């Protein structure tokens, strides 16, 4: 068998996508105009398929902080912290991210993906059991698999299913790690974290929550869904990314377990990846300040989310009950989803097309997201586009 024969399925998918006027998985953004608009295929598009929830990518203070760091500390660190040294700014960011979440310890990774892989492979080994929501992000599954731990899935957002499985595990359940997300990134539904905490406490297990998509959006201080549900103190490990609400790149873990510092000696993605560059650290730190000091950004994004959610509901789309800045619109037929995506694009609206097997229910989805940078007029244009395709 040739080395590349295994790609026959991928080749067929690529060919089908290439036959479309524009390949939805290979969108080339030729110019980023603002936090909510870009030029794609020579035309201005409203970006309704980003994770730029607070619209901070063009924030003047964040941009200035990045520029200053470039001038002062250069373009990159050129190596890992273990081998090539830690910049003071890395430590400052770790202190600030821990303080932001009101946790004792913080650790920064170069991406959100490597944070999840790095934490899970370090925390777990073949002796351990991990129970994971069946719709968890690929990085969470990859980390669990790479750790060699015994992996048990439970149904999406099903604390009772989790409880049953922990019960059956007996002694192994006591030290098991439970892995869930806050806001799920495709359908835009939220985890019942309070119920998960009750289960965790019943068995004495550990709980990791990935707040990648909920950071900056939920909770009085924007700390995420655990804060929103009043269970921050009960979460053992919060992981997340700087690449969504914070408009930067990088990942983190915060915890009250002092052993977090030992993860640095056991986490290969931490040890062997070049550390975040100075400008990335600077923009992230500045964006964290924005979350703390500008709660009005949350008010705007929630207002926009409500507007889009109610508009799509009124149009008759079968969307989830949870109002959030992420709305997944399911389509049973892949071709219908493709056509919708293409027509939205032609009407100046860029969304995300999620095809099997990436869609959580095996069907196809159009993922639509709103940000604090969207104007009410832009939300109206998005809704008008959906309306015209559905009823036109």
């Amino acid at each position, binding site marked *: 068998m040739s080395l590349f024969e295994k790609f026959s399925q991928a080749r067929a998918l690529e060919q089908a996508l290439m036959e479309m006027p524009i390949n939805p998985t290979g969108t080339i953004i030729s110019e980023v105009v603002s936090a909510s608009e870009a030029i794609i295929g020579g035309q201005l598009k409203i970006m309704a398929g980003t994770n730029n929830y607070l619209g901070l990518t063009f924030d003047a203070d964040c941009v200035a902080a990045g520029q200053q760091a470039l001038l002062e500390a250069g373009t990159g660190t050129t190596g890992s912290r273990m081998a090539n040294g830690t910049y003071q700014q890395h430590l400052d960011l770790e202190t600030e991210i821990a303080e932001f979440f009101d946790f004792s310890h913080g650790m920064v990774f170069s991406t959100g993906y490597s944070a999840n892989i790095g934490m899970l492979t370090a925390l777990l080994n073949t002796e351990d059991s991990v129970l994971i929501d069946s719709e968890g992000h690929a990085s969470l599954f990859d980390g669990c698999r790479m750790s060699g731990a015994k992996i048990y*899935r439970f149904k999406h957002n099903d604390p009772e299913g989790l409880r049953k499985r922990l019960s059956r595990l007996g002694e192994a359940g006591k030290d098991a790690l439970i892995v869930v997300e806050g806001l799920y990134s495709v359908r835009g539904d939220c985890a019942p974290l309070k119920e998960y905490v009750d289960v965790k406490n019943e068995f004495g297990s550990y709980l990791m929550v990935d707040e990648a998509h909920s950071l900056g959006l939920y909770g009085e201080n924007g700390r995420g869904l655990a804060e929103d549900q009043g269970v921050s103190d009960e979460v053992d490990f919060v992981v997340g990314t700087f690449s969504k609400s914070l408009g930067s790149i990088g990942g983190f873990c915060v915890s009250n377990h002092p052993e977090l510092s030992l993860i640095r000696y056991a986490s290969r993605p931490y040890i062997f990846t070049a550390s975040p560059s100075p400008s990335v650290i600077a923009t992230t730190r500045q964006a964290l300040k924005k979350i703390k000091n500008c709660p009005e950004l949350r008010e705007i994004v929630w207002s926009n989310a409500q507007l889009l959610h109610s508009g799509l509901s009124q149009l008759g789309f079968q969307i989830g009950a949870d109002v959030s800045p992420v709305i997944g619109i399911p389509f049973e037929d892949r071709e219908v989803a493709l056509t919708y995506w293409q027509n939205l694009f032609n009407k100046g609206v860029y969304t995300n097309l999620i095809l099997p097997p990436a869609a959580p229910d095996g069907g196809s989805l159009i993922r639509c997201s709103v940000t604090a940078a969207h104007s009410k007029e832009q939300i109206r244009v998005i809704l008008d586009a959906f309306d015209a395709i559905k009823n036109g």
Partner: protein
Amino acid sequence: MTHAKIVTRLIELLESLVASVENFDQETALVGDAGLESIQVIEYLCEVEDDFDIVIDEEALSYVNTVGDLAETILKINLGKSS
């Protein structure tokens, strides 16, 4: 519980997910023959776990293709529980 009885019960549990289980037997592949979608596989396996009061880890599932394979896995788990 014997392998054959487990197979019978596993096919019964498939009834709620597929149009007909009339020709299903231990050779029936869960995805290819039964036609389960990925989400249905997870639903089905959760139902199987609840019905047999067991948990099946992902590595054990990686060897499961047919109803008979799944029955074999359950048999091994039950043997492990009783030993």
